[in-house]
């Protein structure tokens, strides 16, 4: 298929407040898209609409050949679109391993209640997968730590690892490096991207850090005032003077950290 995600004329209004309007995007499979824009520009609203947390006021969203407009999140997740959150949605009362087991077991049991009652939480298959996921995201050393005690970076990684439990085809990351120290941002994204490599996943990530966007994205969408004002390669969009004026700021000399990872 040539388009895994097709968004047409998408819009969202809260009463008289227009949070998003006229969004048209076609996403080919396996593309990695960076979404930039100031706070309030509509990026998270956009992500929320695709993932079913918000119902669009207008427009349609097609995933492969399925119309997912307005469907609830749990259906969209089961269909193959997963996401991570600005504030990691993990289970603080459980250990990292138990978090991963829970996510894997849920992904294995189908959506029906009957299946969920009959499927045991701990089975050899799910525990093996959970172990593998924990190792893949390099958080094995935190395996038995309660999720409430984790540092922010590990929380983010766990959040993303859990999102992947259902083997999604599309993954949306909402500010994956927010709250992470500058020196560690690239390390985190390296881990995430290598975990995603060769899994056939299309990625869209919202980011404020332009260095991250430049390094990891194939394509950049710039949001402003609820709509997309630029759509192109990282170089095109980030060098665009209008984008620099409205969103990204002038391109400074590459930071030392970014240079290390170039």
């Amino acid at each position, binding site marked *: 298929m040539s388009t895994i995600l097709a968004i047409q004329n998408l819009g969202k209004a809260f009463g008289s407040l227009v949070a998003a309007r006229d969004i048209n995007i076609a996403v080919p499979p396996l593309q990695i898209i960076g979404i930039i824009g100031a706070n309030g520009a509509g990026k*998270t609203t956009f992500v*929320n609409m695709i993932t079913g*947390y918000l119902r669009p006021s207008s427009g349609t969203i097609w995933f492969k050949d399925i119309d997912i407009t307005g469907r609830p999140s749990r259906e969209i997740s089961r269909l193959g679109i997963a996401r991570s*959150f*600005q*504030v990691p*949605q993990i289970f603080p009362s459980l250990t990292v391993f138990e978090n991963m087991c829970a996510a894997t077991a849920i992904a294995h049991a189908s959506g029906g209640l009957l299946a969920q009652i009959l499927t045991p939480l701990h089975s050899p298959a799910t525990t093996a997968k959970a172990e593998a996921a924990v190792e893949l995201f390099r958080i094995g050393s935190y395996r038995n730590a309660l999720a409430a005690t984790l540092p922010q970076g590990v929380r983010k990684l766990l959040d993303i690892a859990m999102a992947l439990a259902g083997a999604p085809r599309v993954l949306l990351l909402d500010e994956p490096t927010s709250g992470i120290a500058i020196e560690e941002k690239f390390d985190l994204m390296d881990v995430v991207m290598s975990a995603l490599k060769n899994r056939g996943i299309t990625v869209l990530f919202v980011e404020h850090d332009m260095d991250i966007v430049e390094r990891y994205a194939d394509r950049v969408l710039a949001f402003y005032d609820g709509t997309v004002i630029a759509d192109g390669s990282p170089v095109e969009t980030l060098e665009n003077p209008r984008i620099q004026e409205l969103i990204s700021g002038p391109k400074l000399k590459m930071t030392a950290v970014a240079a290390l990872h170039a």
Partner: protein
Amino acid sequence: MLTAFAILTDGLVYAAYLFLVAVGLTLIFGVMKILNVAHGSFYAYGAYGAAIAVGVYFDQGFPAAGGFLLMVLVAMVIGLLLGLILERGLLRLVYGKDEVVVVLVTYAAFLILEDVIQLLWGPNSYSLYQPLDVAGNVDVGPLVLSGYDIGLVVFAALVAASASWALRYTRWGRLLTVVIFDRELAASFGVNVSLVYTLTFVLGAMLGVLGGVVMAPKIAVTLGIGVEVIVLAFAVVAIGGMGSVGGAFVGALIVGLCRAAAVHLLPQIELFVIYGVMALVLVFRPQGLFTRAQPRKI
């Protein structure tokens, strides 16, 4: 036509009663996010206090106006005592804990207070009939209304008006409103939240006790009156929205009139109507009629 009028008057009287018992509860919940089950105790202690103290007063033959004043005084004293004991002595220990846990703490306090009533005043029933006699009856068209009832409705309306005014136009009222909306934000602006909590709880307690005091002449003051009141008060507060005085007013009116209609037209569904209305409102507006919805979480 007569029935309609009777429903209206009965409804208003019942609404006055409901408002007076609910307004303290909603204030405490709005400011402190605590659903105070012991509010039923405030009501009960008010009724007992009034029945005994005010009964004695009237029996001595003192002037009637002073009697009514005494009722308010009794409410304030009992409310102050109970409120302080509960808030400083008990609630202070559980602030910050889970909402439902705090409710259970107030339930435990309620149970203890109920038995204390029995220890203090025994299982007998008391009655306070003097204020009713003094107020006399009033002929309104074909109906004879109790003067006390009319006074009750006027009193409740006054309390509602002054509470709304105070919340909107006095410094303390505005502080309360701020804390209702966002406690942390208020604290970061230098509001002494701990003091506000104590004051609110004591105020809510006084209002609850006042509810019991003014209702004492209309009921048989006996064991168990606090128990029925708390669920009714909660229904009113849930309908109106937690923390909203205006909501308690509207909620009390709705419930009062619906219940009066049920009593006159189909008595079997009296209790059903009250909780049915509450369930109905919650279906369409889970946060009640007058509170804001929760902002976005992710």
